[in-house]
């Protein structure tokens, strides 16, 4: 039983990491109708930015704030101007491929320009251990989980409950109609990417102590986040959290009790089942009526 709890708790900690990365996917899908294959790199870049700010002597919180600033400019504004604006109206394919290109460029740019090594990253929560019912958890585990939860709920509330959030969704669903209604489309698109950039920074802050700052850290993270987002439901931010936790926990249980070699397959089976029986995801809304 303790074993089980240990696995579940650890899985939830890992899962909340997936959830944070998945949150970006669901946000972009709901608010701009795109999929960003560079989402993992969007987490990796702020991690390195924070390291860079740290190396010139900024303490972590300041480095984080500075990184947020830079990220909103680069991953938000520049991404919007450089990639989203010209490509959004051409449908999904070109922008998806552009983000694949971006992922390749970012990953290899960091590798060539900085280093191919993994770098340790200061943890936000210190290295404290707790014993709860015979189960060991770290402060970081709990902190990540709580913060992930908070971010997910905040994002969800923003999108669903504020007019700006809904205007962002409106732009994704029908840009021309949004224009006709006088919605400031470019600004909404910018908000979307700016928020995405901020979420990526937050994710980087929480994720990197475990993932380590490495040029290809985004690759694995991106894939897992993908799975998490689908299982939870792509058009729902809470889904990202649920999906992330499910993937994290299932992986752990499978690795311990089924087959470590096929542990990814368990998430996969789940994933297939969700896709086939509830394609909109566990918490996703069904898209209504086509004819």
């Amino acid at each position, binding site marked *: 039983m303790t074993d089980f709890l240990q696995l579940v708790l650890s899985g939830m900690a890992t899962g909340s990491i997936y959830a944070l990365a998945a949150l970006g996917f669901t946000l972009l899908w709901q608010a701009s109708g795109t999929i960003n294959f560079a989402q993992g790199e969007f987490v990796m870049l702020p991690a390195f930015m924070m390291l860079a700010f740290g190396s010139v002597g900024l303490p972590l919180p300041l480095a984080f704030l500075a990184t947020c600033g830079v990220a909103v400019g680069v991953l938000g504004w520049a991404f919007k101007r450089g990639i989203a604006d010209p490509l959004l109206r051409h449908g999904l394919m070109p922008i998806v491929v552009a983000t694949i290109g971006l992922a390749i460029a970012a990953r290899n740019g960091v590798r060539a320009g900085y280093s191919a090594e993994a770098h340790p990253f200061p943890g936000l929560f210190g290295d404290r251990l707790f014993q709860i019912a015979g189960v060991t958890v770290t402060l970081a585990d709990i902190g990540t989980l709580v913060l992930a939860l908070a971010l997910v709920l905040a994002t969800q509330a923003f999108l669903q409950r504020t*007019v700006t959030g*809904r205007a962002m*969704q409106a732009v994704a669903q*029908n840009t021309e*109609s949004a224009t*006709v*209604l006088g*919605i400031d489309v470019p600004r909404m698109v910018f908000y979307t990417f700016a928020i995405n950039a901020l979420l990526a920074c937050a994710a980087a802050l929480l994720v990197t102590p475990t993932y380590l700052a490495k040029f290809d850290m985004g690759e694995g993270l991106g894939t897992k986040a993908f799975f998490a987002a689908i299982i939870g439901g792509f058009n729902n931010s809470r889904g990202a959290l649920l999906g992330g936790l499910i993937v994290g926990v299932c992986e752990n249980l499978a690795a311990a009790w089924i087959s470590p070699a096929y542990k990814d397959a368990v998430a996969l089976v789940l994933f297939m089942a969700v896709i086939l029986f509830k394609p909109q995801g566990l918490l996703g809304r069904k*898209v*209504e009526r086509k004819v």
Partner: protein
Amino acid sequence: MIEFDDVVAGYGDFMILNHLSLKAARGKITLLLGPNGAGKSTVLKTLFGLLKVRQGRVRLDGRDITGASARQLLTEHGVAFVPQGRNLFGQLSVWENLELGGITLGMKTTHERIPEVLERFPRVRERLHSAAASLSGGEQKQLEVGRALLLRPKVLLIDEPSIGLSPLVVQDVFRLLRRLADEQGVTVLMVEQNVKSALKMADEAIALESGRQVLHRRADELLADPHIERLFLGGAHTMAAPV
């Protein structure tokens, strides 16, 4: 007054309006008629800043609005536009669609005005919290018209509102437009294929063919004209016999 002066506009390299000039009087209801593909919708889209004006000028009450964006027209000139086809945010609820319709007004004003609109379109009120895409064709159109009225525009561009609306509702909408023009001096530029009913309520009519104005007359005159058929037929063709 809406004024097109020698306007050239189109899609990519395909010019639909070739040196089009036309005028729609202020505070009047002007109909835009013509065969399918004449360029009626293109006129409205160009006017509303959705298509680029390649040549010529567009003026509104004497002010040059060539190249103005939709947002500017809406906020600075009080122009609202109901396009042809379906233009809702399908996955958002009816209520949310209405709210977004008033985004340029601020939420306070919008919330004050929404009940008024709902009263006018009771079918829409019944479905207030359903996703817009689940509405029937006519219900969706009603919602769209309502959403535009929320803005209390000074100029209303409306593209074939009668598509999908049942006869009673069409009458309602037409009557409403008439009142807006008469009581509030709203300028209405409307495209219609439902020619006879539309002419009955309109002030003037412009017929378009291949992107050219072929006629501009008073609506009542036109209605009385025995040759009216020819005008919106796009020449003298009728459909050939079946094979």
